[in-house]
């Protein structure tokens, strides 16, 4: 039994039938009948009630896809028994990591906090320059700064811990 998580909500989903391009599915309490053709790898031509869409899917993780239709994007997570089990075991997904790092190498432009300081969720703690752009890194929830591992002007690697939280 599958569910899909879209826009933060789990909805039951079931493929009722698939005959070539013709797919009948139930999502929540709605039934959809669509004509669906994979035209390129992960790119689908979908016709639903005469309306034509080109939907491109890209896997972010094993069961997580980003669907793109023109400039509209939607994150879709396939929720199966395994996901539900993992969820029941795991903690709150919104939990911050215990440090801030950047996904790419760059240079520290400015550090806006001091060790021991309390910061509110959403507050910027460090500004890093990479690819000729400056990016502000924020904390996602209220935190206390434990240790600052870098200095302003310092070159850093991607995924290198910069600031630790308590």
């Amino acid at each position, binding site marked *: 039994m599958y569910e899909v998580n879209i826009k933060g909500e789990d909805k039951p989903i079931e493929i009722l039938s698939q005959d070539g391009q*013709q797919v009948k599915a139930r999502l929540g309490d709605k039934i959809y009948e669509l004509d669906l053709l994979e035209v*390129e790898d992960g790119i689908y031509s979908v016709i639903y009630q005469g309306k034509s869409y080109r939907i491109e899917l890209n896997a972010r993780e094993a069961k997580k896809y980003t669907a793109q*239709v023109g400039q509209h994007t939607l994150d879709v997570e396939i929720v199966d028994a395994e996901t539900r089990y993992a969820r029941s075991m795991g903690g709150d997904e919104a939990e911050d990591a215990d440090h801030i790092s950047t996904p790419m190498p760059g240079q520290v432009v400015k550090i806006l906090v001091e060790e021991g300081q309390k910061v509110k969720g959403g507050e910027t703690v460090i500004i890093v320059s990479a*690819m000729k*752009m400056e*990016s502000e890194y924020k904390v996602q929830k209220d935190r206390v700064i434990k240790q600052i591992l870098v200095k302003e002007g310092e070159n850093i690697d991607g995924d290198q811990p910069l600031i630790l939280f308590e």
Partner: protein
Amino acid sequence: MIKKILIANRGEIAIRVMRSCREMGIRSVAVYSEADRASAHVQYADEAYCIGPAASNESYLNYEKIISVAKETGADAIHPGYGFLSENAEFSNRCKEEGIIFIGPDAHAINTMGDKITARKTMIAAGVPVVPGTAKPIIDLDDAVETIHKIGLPVMVKASAGGGGKGMRLVEKEEDIISSVKAAKSEALAAFGNDAVYVEKYIDSPHHIEFQILADQHGNCIHLFERECSVQRRHQKVVEETPSPIMRPDVRAEMGRHAVAAAKAVNYAGAGTIEFITDDDLNYYFLEMNTRLQVEHPITEQVVGVDLVREQIHIANGEKLRFRQEDLTQHGHAIEVRVYAEDPDNNFMPSPGKIKHIHLPLGLGIRHDGYVYDGYEIPIYYDPMISKLVAWGNNRQEAIQRMKRALEVYSISGVKTSIPFLLRIMNVPDFQKGGYTTHFIQNHTEALKKPEEEHEELDDLAAIVSLVHHTNNLLKAAGPAASSNHESAWKQFGRKKAVSRL
């Protein structure tokens, strides 16, 4: 005559230059850093040489290395593109010393225009308007009032020793002049122990308008009209268009003459751009000169019909300009948007990574200058610009409509891009009206945010397609036997075609 050109650059501009080389029968030599072996400019060139590690200062800025490659491969000339070494006077000089043609101006022009104070003085001498202001600090109140009257309101009064906004006063009304100057002076005295002030014209709703020029080595210079570049984010141009929606023919002609005068004042040769700051009433003031090809040069090419790189090469060959001012007209309207690998909905965070798939918008009036391809990994070391999309139309409205239809279907997956943001710009009524200033983006942060539209049906379809894709991939992975079993199970349900055909 130039027969082989080394392009001391990477990415889209390297390819742009090579295209004109190909059309002229000139061989092209690419140079690349170790991070750029897979870059399309390496593949498009006739020859390609690695010049060092990823870091720009060890490769694309290592001009002795570049010169040695040029000499070893017998390149007659070096085209620097934009950025990197394009405005490096020392490099221009070194090329000259080595007998290699630098496709750009000489060191004198680069140096003069590269230094703000020298450039300002040179422009004043050449009769080109600069932002009115005092050249030295004023201490006397009456002097200050007289200067303000000469410059005309509004003005900004600034503490000459100042900084951080202290001792700074915007004066907009006649009756506020004396009180504002007094306040600025006393604030300055309190803060810095010095009550001298500067006065500078305040441009209330500034427009960034620039003129493209071409000058040969024989003293001839023409302009190729203006580009409007006021849509900026953090002083970076985001959208450019030509003609400027606020321009008038008389002002255009006058600005063009001043642009030519500016170039002539430094004996300029090559392609260059004179940037002006302009107010709503089309008062305009010299800002700076870019002594190179600009990122946004394609819109001029689309509207004026001149291949600027080709003309750069002809000029570098020592030929006379092939166009007279009276040969040139503006034909229709062109808009360029810059597509970056960045996340516009997450504070424009750079988004390097592997391109999964590119879906290009093409057809009438669309020009695409890019360099990435399916499976290409955008390096983290350089500018995150992926491509430039240009829409040409018979008039401004048509160009906007065309850009919209192009942006609506332009997709680059695998990395985040600024495409959705650019599309939102096209939809902002103030952009469509055309009177926008350099404050456009900051004034429209709400309209430029990711819209909270409801796409419930589409989202549902996307979810269903995701599940079909997911389960089909599982079946494929499980092998042919499992797959056929599963399909026949589905067929039991679905033998009667579920979707009727019209």
